[in-house]
């Protein structure tokens, strides 16, 4: 919440942003890179071959990292307890096998409606569920997945993957190593080499124009009426519940991944002169049209003409965005989307959004 207040302040102060925004940007990226989830990892009881059973391993997992990268920290706790044989490592949370290619922070935000600290996970060294999980050959698989996501993001932002393909092998290696080690300084030194196009921060652009002008104006930068579209890499994870809930702890647990709708599709970010700011809400609604709030209901004229009963009925039948989490932050939906992307995206240039929705009643 503290961090969010700082964000809120920035959004309100339209004028004197300049240097302060620069510092805040660095601060936001640092916040993202330093985010971590405390894990308590238990060896699956079927694999405990020692007596007494080993105590759980306590590991601090970087949010932007991946579970298989933690194995070298975890295995020493359990190696004496394992039955003989070859390792094929996987994790589960309350019985749900975890998809290893989803960043750890995203898994946590999605699966724990009420954040659990430490997060209790179970590790398995045998019996890989290859009918549901794609295989993982350790660090290589995770690296390949990262580079592929980076290429896909590049394609979305630049229109081609040339920037990634043209990186030297050693630069690619160094980039991956910086992510693996959570080394933001190294990553920052290397990111100019990725040559990823900018997702223009419309908020800062408007703020940096020196002459005061109404939001309707702004002809100095663009030709009036020109629409600029950018495509932004987004991975949206949607969990829906059928009943409303008071507290997050009342949200039922997830049994299968079929309960999640996963949308890996770019958001078309429209920037039009004179058009109001494109918010996080606008972005999410463009991917989930069924959860669009009925804007007519919110306008004064319409509201007066509707009876209270009618609007109540509509409330129930409409779907509702209950919770939107990015990097562990519960987001206010009115924040400019460009700010969210530029400050909260993962190192592979994807913005991962976990959403909890209440299904519309039919």
């Amino acid at each position, binding site marked *: 919440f503290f961090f969010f207040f700082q964000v809120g302040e920035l959004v309100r102060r339209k004028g004197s942003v300049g240097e302060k925004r620069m510092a805040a940007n660095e601060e936001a990226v640092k916040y993202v890179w330093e985010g971590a989830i405390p894990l308590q990892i238990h060896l699956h009881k079927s694999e405990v071959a020692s007596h007494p059973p080993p105590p759980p391993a306590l590991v601090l997992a970087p949010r932007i990292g991946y579970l298989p990268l933690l194995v070298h920290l975890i295995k020493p706790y359990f190696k004496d307890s394992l039955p003989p044989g070859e390792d094929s490592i996987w994790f589960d949370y309350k019985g749900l096998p975890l*998809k290893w290619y989803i960043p750890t922070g995203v898994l946590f935000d999605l699966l724990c409606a009420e954040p659990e600290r430490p997060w209790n996970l179970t590790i398995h060294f045998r019996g890989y569920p*290859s*009918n*549901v*999980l*794609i*295989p993982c050959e350790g660090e290589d698989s995770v690296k*390949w997945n990262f580079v*592929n996501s980076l*290429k*896909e993001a590049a*394609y*979305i932002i630049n229109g081609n*993957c040339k920037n990634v393909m043209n990186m030297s092998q050693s630069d690619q290696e160094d980039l991956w190593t910086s992510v693996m080690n959570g080394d933001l300084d190294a990553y920052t030194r290397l990111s100019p080499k990725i040559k990823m196009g900018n997702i223009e921060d419309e908020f800062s652009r408007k703020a940096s124009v020196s002459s005061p002008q109404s939001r309707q104006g702004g002809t100095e930068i663009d030709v009036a009426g020109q629409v600029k579209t950018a495509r932004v*890499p987004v991975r949206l994870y*949607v969990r*829906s519940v059928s009943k409303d809930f008071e507290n997050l702890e009342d949200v039922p647990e997830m049994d*299968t*991944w*079929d309960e999640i*709708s*996963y*949308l*890996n*599709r*770019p958001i078309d970010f429209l920037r039009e002169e004179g058009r109001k700011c494109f918010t996080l809400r606008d972005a999410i609604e463009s*991917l*989930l*049209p*069924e959860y669009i709030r009925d804007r007519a209901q919110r306008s004064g004229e319409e509201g007066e003409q509707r009876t209270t009963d009618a609007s109540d009925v509509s409330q129930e039948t409409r779907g509702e965005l209950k919770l939107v989490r990015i990097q562990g932050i519960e987001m206010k939906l009115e924040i400019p989307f460009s700010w969210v992307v530029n400050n909260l995206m993962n190192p592979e240039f994807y913005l991962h959004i976990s959403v909890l*929705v209440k*299904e519309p009643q039919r």
Partner: protein
Amino acid sequence: MDSAGEVVNDGKITLEGFTVAARAFADKWKRHNLSFPPWSWVPLINRTMLKKEEGYLSLEKIIILSSLEGSAEEESLDVTADWSEKEESIDHTVLVQNEEDEAHYYDYHIVYSASYMVPMLYFRGYSSDGKPLSLDVIKRDLPSSSVSLLLESKWTFITQEEHPYLNRPWFKLHPCGTEEWIKLLSESSSSDGCQIPVELYLVSWFSVVGQVVGLKIPREMLI
């Protein structure tokens, strides 16, 4: 601009275009490719209730008889010959097979990639007891040209990834480069401008992609 009729100019296709192209592809296939069962359109109806009708094409339970000798291309031709004989009397999913040969079943899905704005082919193989086939086994069913490409780049040709909608591991043909050869195809085939009409987009696409997995389409479909 009529978005349904518009193929984005550089070999890519819009979501609306894909839906139109998919229907056209399935129709042509049904008419001209009688040796195979038809493709079905699987709509995506999930809780998020996407506004436009989205979906993918599915062709399932295609049998490739694996034998110890001979190339996979010959094998797939064998498959088609079997189908045309049996189509009238037998359900497509039933195969009368030789005891010595092991039947491998394949499912193919053509899914739209919003990121790359091109179609992608997902496929998986399994034996008659439903057990998934490994890539090594699948390679033996592929044409030899595909196999050498696969050997050259482990990570960038056919890869095992999660199906975008089914939460299961499938194999995927990597899309990088798709729009380039579609562009080449359209430049060489059309006289006015460089555009493939949307109705023929998937036909053209599949004429290349299908060959990688040993599926050929009859020439009549390209008209």
